[in-house]
């Protein structure tokens, strides 16, 4: 017994660590979206601010990226689902001897590295472009076209897997019955097979869109003049990080959670309705007096959904009226005080040094004290990166702030006549 509960505890601990690893980064990133410093940090927490969200909506490149992502996504969904469906249907009908080879070919794109797919797409269609004789501006070298093609190559494989699973449960006698009753093949497909496949097609479409939206490896070679959101993000993340990215991530997380809850609520509701229908009697069904269970009844996901929706409304409402200016001013004031304190200390120490040195110098010739960084501005070492805080990267964004706020009270401290002992 003891070993059993020990195991259970260790399992729970393991799970806890695991989920912390999995979800931790997201939580932290969400926090940085609301924190005021310009470099995303969760600690120390300075001010609650919504400015990064505002910055997000004003960023041209991001908005353009979103537009392209949606265009590419739409194209990819259509092409992938169509090819996946055709591939799935073919798989069920193909000559058994050929089946294994065929299956290997259509599964292969999942295993081929995304970069390879991107490159091969680029190279191939470029060559076709040249063979057909079109110029560099042609449709075939359009970034949107190439990206849709490249992504669909492997996303269709995923779609096919989803569709085949459903297709295997289909009774071909249904198509035959439709034909027998006079339907053309197109009608049989449209009226019998397609409705049956609808749930799987919907899943495949959602899957395709999400996979397309977040694809990087392949898109990074094919996007041409039409960067998707993912590409823009990658550029930003590599070359200029701001919490606006965290803000975007946070929005996506919230949307995802919404979608997941919505999905759960839907499933649960369908189950409830089906169960109620089974229990109902024929008269209830016919007379239309059939009472459908309420939207929220025994449906935790729906409740959570509603709660989240309310919370979102509240937060957005607050955001529009809330201004962090006061808080930021406070923080800056705080910083100013700290900095002044430090400068005082520094000044004191230098005075002591100078005094000591003067005492020494009485014996030796005075040496010119070059500013540590060879700085001609006369500000001495005060503006050098290491003086104020210890971090390298963020100083690029800190220094401008310090310079800009000259009118907020740092004033005389940095006046040329101030510190330098040179």
């Amino acid at each position, binding site marked *: 017994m003891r070993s059993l509960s020990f195991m259970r505890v260790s399992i729970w601990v393991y799970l806890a660590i695991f989920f912390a690893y999995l979800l931790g980064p997201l939580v*932290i990133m969400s926090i940085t979206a609301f924190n005021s410093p310009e470099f995303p940090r969760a600690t120390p927490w300075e001010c609650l601010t919504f400015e990064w969200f505002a910055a997000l909506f004003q960023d041209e490149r991001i908005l353009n990226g979103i537009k392209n992502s949606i265009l590419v996504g739409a194209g990819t969904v259509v092409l992938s689902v169509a090819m996946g469906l055709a591939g799935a249907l073919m798989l069920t009908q193909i000559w058994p001897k050929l089946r294994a080879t065929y299956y290997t070919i259509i599964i292969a794109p999942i295993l081929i*590295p995304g970069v390879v797919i991107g490159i091969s797409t680029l190279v191939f269609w470029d060559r076709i472009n040249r063979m057909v004789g079109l110029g560099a501006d042609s449709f075939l070298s359009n970034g949107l076209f190439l990206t849709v093609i490249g992504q669909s190559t492997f996303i269709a494989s995923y779609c096919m*897997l989803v569709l085949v699973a459903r297709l295997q449960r289909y009774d071909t006698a249904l198509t035959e019955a439709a034909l027998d009753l006079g339907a053309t*093949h197109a009608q049989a497909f449209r009226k019998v097979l397609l409705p049956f496949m609808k749930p799987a097609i919907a899943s495949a479409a959602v899957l395709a869109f999400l996979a397309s939206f*977040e694809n990087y490896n392949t898109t990074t070679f094919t996007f041409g003049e039409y960067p998707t959101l993912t590409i823009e993000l990658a550029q930003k993340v*590599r070359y200029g990080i701001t919490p606006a990215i*965290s803000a975007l991530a946070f929005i996506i997380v919230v949307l995802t959670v919404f979608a*997941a809850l919505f999905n759960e609520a839907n499933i649960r509701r369908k189950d409830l309705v089906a169960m109620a229908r089974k229990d109902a009697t024929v008269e209830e069904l016919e007379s239309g007096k059939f009472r459908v269970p309420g939207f929220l009844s025994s449906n935790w996901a729906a409740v959570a959904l509603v709660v989240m929706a309310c919370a979102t409304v509240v937060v957005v409402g607050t955001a529009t009226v809330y201004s962090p200016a006061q808080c930021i001013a406070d923080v800056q004031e705080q910083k100013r005080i700290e900095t002044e304190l430090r400068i005082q200390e520094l000044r004191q120490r230098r005075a002591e040094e100078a005094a000591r040195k003067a005492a020494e110098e009485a014996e030796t010739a005075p040496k010119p004290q070059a500013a540590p960084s060879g700085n001609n501005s006369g500000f001495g070492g005060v503006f050098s990166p290491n003086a104020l805080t210890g*971090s390298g990267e963020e100083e690029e964004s800190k220094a401008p702030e310090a310079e800009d706020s000259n009118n907020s009270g740092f004033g005389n401290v940095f006046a040329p006549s101030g510190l330098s002992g040179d």
Partner: protein
Amino acid sequence: MPRFLREFFNRNGVGMGSLMLALVLFWTVGLIILPQLSMLDFSFRPNLPPPEIGGPKDVYTVENYKYLIFGPEGGSQDYNAVDLRVFYRTLIAAVFVTLFNLVLCYPIAYYLAQTKGNHIRIFALMLIIPYWINEILRAFALRIIFGETGVLNNALVGLGIFDTPFDFIRNDIALYAGLGYAYILLMIFPIYNVIESLDRNQIEAARDMGASWPMIHRRVVIPYAKPGISSGCTMVFMLSAGALAAPQILGGPSSLWFTQLIYQQFNDNSDWPQGAAYAVVLLVTCILLVLAVMRLFKVNMGDIGK
């Protein structure tokens, strides 16, 4: 018309049948087979500016492949040590990440598969949600955490474990953590699927006979879960070796990934044939390794389906 073609059109109608055939052929031949062949062919050509392509200078050559191994002609080294080392490291790292992932995810998959209850659905949801977030953003989140002023460093310094912030990025720890993080779902689900179909009674019978848990796993569960395990490992390995975003965002200057070399060839050097050659090398190596593993563990392609 050959008989099977006639039967095909009988079954599906001429219109629908043609559409189906067209889509499937476009996909298999036009999108899968031909581009790969084209890339292969391209990798054997010299890097010519557009006007000269197809002209007299456009001959087949192995120079792109030679470059990978021997470096630039007339160069100072005998072997292209830099690129070769990157290639080698990428593969080793991918293997390492795969194993790490396997060890990490196997218990989770097992737990999810063998326990019942409503909380399982919530767990599954919690597992899936991070994956609907862009991989760039996930890498970004880790970058924030592992950065010099990130949460991790702040915590470590604050607790006094380190005096100065530890450079996770330069030491590749961030990268490995990032890669491990990225493909957890792909490792869990195949294993989960397989273990779920394992009859609980087998395990209980083993316990009845006095087997210890490690033994049960080794002799009962793992052999049964082989297809799922190899499926997950294959996918994680291929994706790690071919990863681009994580190395670009989380990698330090010394941890260049082979895919980054390819990227450089295409974007920075504009040497498409060279990049194509590298891509072919990557592809072939990955395929060979995967085939070897499949052979070793006696699984086949049909098992790799989610």
